[in-house]
């Protein structure tokens, strides 16, 4: 199954220390065979939200929800089941939290 792991960081937190950064790189390398995509994201100060109000797009500054926890990056992984995805998330060296969501498979099965 395919899952997206969404990594959160704190709004106020500066970017990870070089040491943590090194371990994050290591995480991507170790789990390389299961990772099919993913990126680190710029901070929410760079975010722009397009919101549909009465069907009309309205462009605003900032993320779609103002919270302390913000998504700082994501990885798409291809694994057998949720337990494997949880195992990957448990090994994540960053701070904050990791949200795991299965993706919906469209097209012929």
């Amino acid at each position, binding site marked *: 199954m395919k899952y997206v792991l969404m990594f959160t960081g704190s709004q106020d937190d500066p970017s990870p220390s070089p040491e943590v950064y090194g371990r994050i790189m290591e995480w991507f390398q170790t789990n390389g065979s299961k990772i099919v995509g993913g990126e680190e994201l710029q901070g929410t100060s760079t975010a722009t939200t397009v919101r549909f109000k009465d069907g009309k797009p309205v462009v605003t500054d900032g993320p779609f929800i103002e919270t302390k926890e913000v998504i700082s990056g994501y990885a798409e992984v291809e694994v057998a089941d949720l337990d494997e995805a*949880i195992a990957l998330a448990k090994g994540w060296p960053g701070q904050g939290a990791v949200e795991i969501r299965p993706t919906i498979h469209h097209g012929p099965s």
Partner: protein
Amino acid sequence: MRSGRRSTTAQAEDALVQVFREEAGRLTARLVRIIGNFDVAEEIVQDTLLVALEKWPKDGIPDRPAAWLATAAKRRAIDHLRRDARFRQKLELLKQELTTPESEEPDDRLRLIFTCCHPALSREAQVALTLRAVAGFTTPEIARAFLTTESAIAQRIVRARRKIVEAGIPYRVPEGQDLDERVQEVLAVLYLMFNEGYLASTGKPVRRDLAEDAEWLAGLVVRLLPAEPEAIGLLVLMRLHLARADARLDAAGDLVLLRDQDRSRWKRDLIAGAIGLLEQAGAMRRPGPYQLQAAIAACHAEAASWEATDWPQILLLYDALVRLLPTPVVRLNRAVALRHVQGAAEALAEVDALAGELAGYHLFHATRAELLIELGAAEKSRAASARALELTTNPAERAVLERRLAELDA
């Protein structure tokens, strides 16, 4: 808690409950394995149980109830799979399976238990799903046990089943490091189930009793995972409570404190059996919180009278428990043991240190009230009892507190 003499109808119901308990989980486990879809399999079994519940009380329980249920479930499953293109390939498999006698099948229920108690499900969903899929409860029975509506439980079950399928929660027994963590999760679910049944019990007979079913489930986990001493610890803890359950309520249905219980009503043979089991767990040399709590319950259960209670031993066990599980509630209970070893003043100092964390917990105030009385501070004790009363809605506990307040006024 079921007690007293049972009528013929009640005996027939007991027999029915036993069949459901033993067969529902096995059948669900087999169907999940064949169909490969938890959502569909669980629903088919529940529907099958409902049919049996309608027929059996009238026609009697069939000679081979497992085979009856398997045949009925198979018929439903075939109907279901015909309608759903995703399962076409499973049809042939299903037609061949579920015909071999049950006894030749491996017991698959452990996988089922781990799936129902997966940490990615909410605790409420874990409880409801385990009761239905493993212990053969019907939705109305779960609703009654948790004093909620059938639709609320049904919704909880449907959501949980969907999550299992859509989020890819696996149907297997975890291995290695994960196993220990996941066993703890299962035990926590069963302990919550037990407490819900035990504390909320009113003495009124019900067809299914949560505390007894939790004990049955814990026994099943012990049978399937015989090398887990903490599972044995939980089972013993439950059995020691159940062995003394009859003495917990008086004729009027009021709660009787341990100190005042008629110990001749305790089931000594059950207590001895449970303690023997705890010794087997102890021999595995992997202590844990459930084994320690069971050992504390065993100290109480073995004491011939309240005065004969071995408090120094209980305090030692609490010291060990606090090291493993340093929660404020465990520290509060340790303080009660401390009172009997070192006195009320020392115990009160320990209890007062928990004021910040337990200000909203009625037993914190009730314990303080008792210690304050002993130290001659009647006014402070009254205030603490009043605060405890404000914080609990449990009728049995309220009655105890009201009695204590009345005694202060007398």
